[in-house]
């Protein structure tokens, strides 16, 4: 289900002027606080009326200011998960979950038990929202949105109000949801970790404009988006398959360009994993390096160089069918004679697991 968004809105202080398309699955709206992410989601939900705009979901026109079309909030069927949960304090968890049932027919017994299992909230059903922890509230809020049979799930920084432990508690459920659910998700976040774990598609925003949009792996390894993502943030996202666990406590993962060795993962052989390689963890070498302690050394080809701040460059590399970014000093780039089309070797100092294929327990 495609979502097409075109919006213009003048706020006191800044102008929002964006256009993007989400092809379905999880699309992340990524950017610093105050870049307009939440306004976009509110406009899609119908809680904010933009000065000008057109929003289409599949073949349904939700908004077209030129033709004076504006579907009211309650008829849009957008499952909105707010940053602060917004559970109804006068209703029990079960009543909160079934609230949408009165209006959309969602929340039949089968749907309820499926969502309750997916989110692990069976034990909370008869509790009052006031007695739940932040993480529990957020899981109930997600369930409530799902049970209203939404056409699109809008998640506005659903983890931002939680501490690290609670985030870690919910992320597996979100990953599971992102994979299982047929409902497309628009996920607002300023956390790169969340985006790399969840999103298939990324829209990078800065000061009310779209900086870059496209598949997650392409956007995150795009040197042009690096300014917004930050040096530590830019890097590459690679899909891999767990091959085997070695006797000396490592795990072999196959990626497009070859095999990587990672510290022992919990994922079983055969399962899909997502790996993140930060641009600062990549070393380049013109000759095949010998006598290094690094385990992961692969051949690659230089695609282009992009200046990234004083004295530094970002090198975009082709690694099999994947793309990789390396952050170097200008001096080393010159010394190595790096230019588009030149072959080289990449030495990976560290490879992080972005997400694993395991279902949450």
């Amino acid at each position, binding site marked *: 289900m495609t979502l097409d968004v075109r919006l213009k809105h003048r706020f006191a202080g800044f102008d929002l002027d964006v256009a993007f398309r989400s092809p379905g699955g999880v699309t992340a709206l990524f950017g610093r606080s105050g870049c307009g992410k939440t306004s976009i989601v509110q406009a899609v*939900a*119908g*809680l904010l009326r933009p000065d000008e705009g057109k929003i289409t979901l599949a073949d349904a026109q939700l908004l077209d200011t030129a033709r004076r079309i504006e579907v*009211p*909030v*309650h*008829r*849009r*069927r*957008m*499952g*909105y998960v*707010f940053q*602060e949960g*917004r559970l*109804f*304090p*006068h*209703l*029990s968890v079960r009543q909160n979950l079934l*609230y*949408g049932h*009165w*209006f*959309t027919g969602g929340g039949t017994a089968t749907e309820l038990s499926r969502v309750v299992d997916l989110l692990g909230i069976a034990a909370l059903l008869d509790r*009052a*929202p*006031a*007695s739940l922890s932040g993480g529990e509230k957020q899981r109930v809020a997600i369930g*409530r*949105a799902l049970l*209203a049979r939404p056409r699109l799930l809008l998640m506005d920084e659903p983890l931002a109000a939680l501490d690290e432990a609670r985030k870690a508690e919910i992320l597996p459920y979100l990953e599971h949801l992102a994979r299982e659910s047929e409902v497309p998700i628009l996920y607002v976040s300023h956390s790169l970790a969340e985006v790399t774990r969840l999103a298939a598609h990324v829209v990078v925003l800065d000061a009310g404009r779209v900086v870059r949009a496209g598949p997650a792996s392409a956007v995150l390894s795009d040197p042009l988006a690096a300014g917004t993502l930050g040096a530590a943030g830019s890097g590459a996202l690679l899909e891999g398959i767990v091959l085997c666990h070695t006797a000396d406590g490592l795990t072999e993962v196959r990626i497009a360009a070859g095999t990587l060795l990672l510290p022992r993962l919990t994922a079983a052989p055969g399962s899909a994993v997502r790996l993140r390689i930060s641009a600062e963890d990549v070393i380049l070498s013109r000759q095949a390096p010998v006598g290094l302690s690094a385990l992961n050394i692969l051949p690659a080809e230089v695609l282009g160089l992009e200046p990234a701040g004083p004295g530094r460059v970002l090198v975009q590399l082709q690694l099999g069918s994947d793309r990789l970014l390396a952050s170097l000093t200008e001096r080393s780039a010159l010394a190595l004679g790096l230019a588009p089309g030149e072959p080289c070797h990449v030495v990976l100092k560290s490879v992080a697991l972005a997400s694993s294929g395991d279902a949450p327990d």
Partner: protein
Amino acid sequence: MEPGWLSAEEWQAVVLSLRVSFWATLVSLPLGILVALALARGRFPGRQLLNGLVHLPLILPPVVTGYLLLLTFGRKAPVGSFLYEAFGIVFAFRWTGAALAAGVMAFPLMVRAIRLSIEAVDPKLEQAAATLGASRVWVFLTVTLPLILPGIVAGAILAFAKAMGEFGATITFVSNIPGETQTLPSAIYSFLQVPDGDAAAFRLVLISVSIAMLALLLSEVVAQRVARRISGR
């Protein structure tokens, strides 16, 4: 049927006061909720005027309010004669007129309590309900109304207590007719005008004080219970 320690006239005043206050509160409650909603949430021209109008009985001398009611709802007055001819409703010198006077005098207190509770409701919860498919009416019925229930209960009980004590506007508008418009305060006033009425007046004062205290206690208990249920603890 009256208790032995009260004369028929005294008992009549007590029952009449309860009836007048009950109807005054019940009839003005829906209107009070609407006006409170308009004042708390409405953005329309004349909002300040409405606010002033609602609060007028609170600051005008009750005699003036009573006189204005007479000018408006008297048998020969514009609204009064229309209501009589169209619906056969008469306010002047009837217990219904006493209820109208009591309702008007209690209205500002009722609206104030309800308005405060509406302003305390987080509009974000109402937005959340709308995204789940609830139209504006359903949002009000399923989210706003349950959340402002303590305010409505408090407002109604406050209005009832105020109606029980209303004197100036009532006596000006509908006079002091035993059995028809002689409410508790009017009866106390009448007994104080006759040489040996002190004992009767004192009995009615005791009843008046008890009813007021009871109403206050009741409002506390009910509001607490409702608040506990709504906050989900």
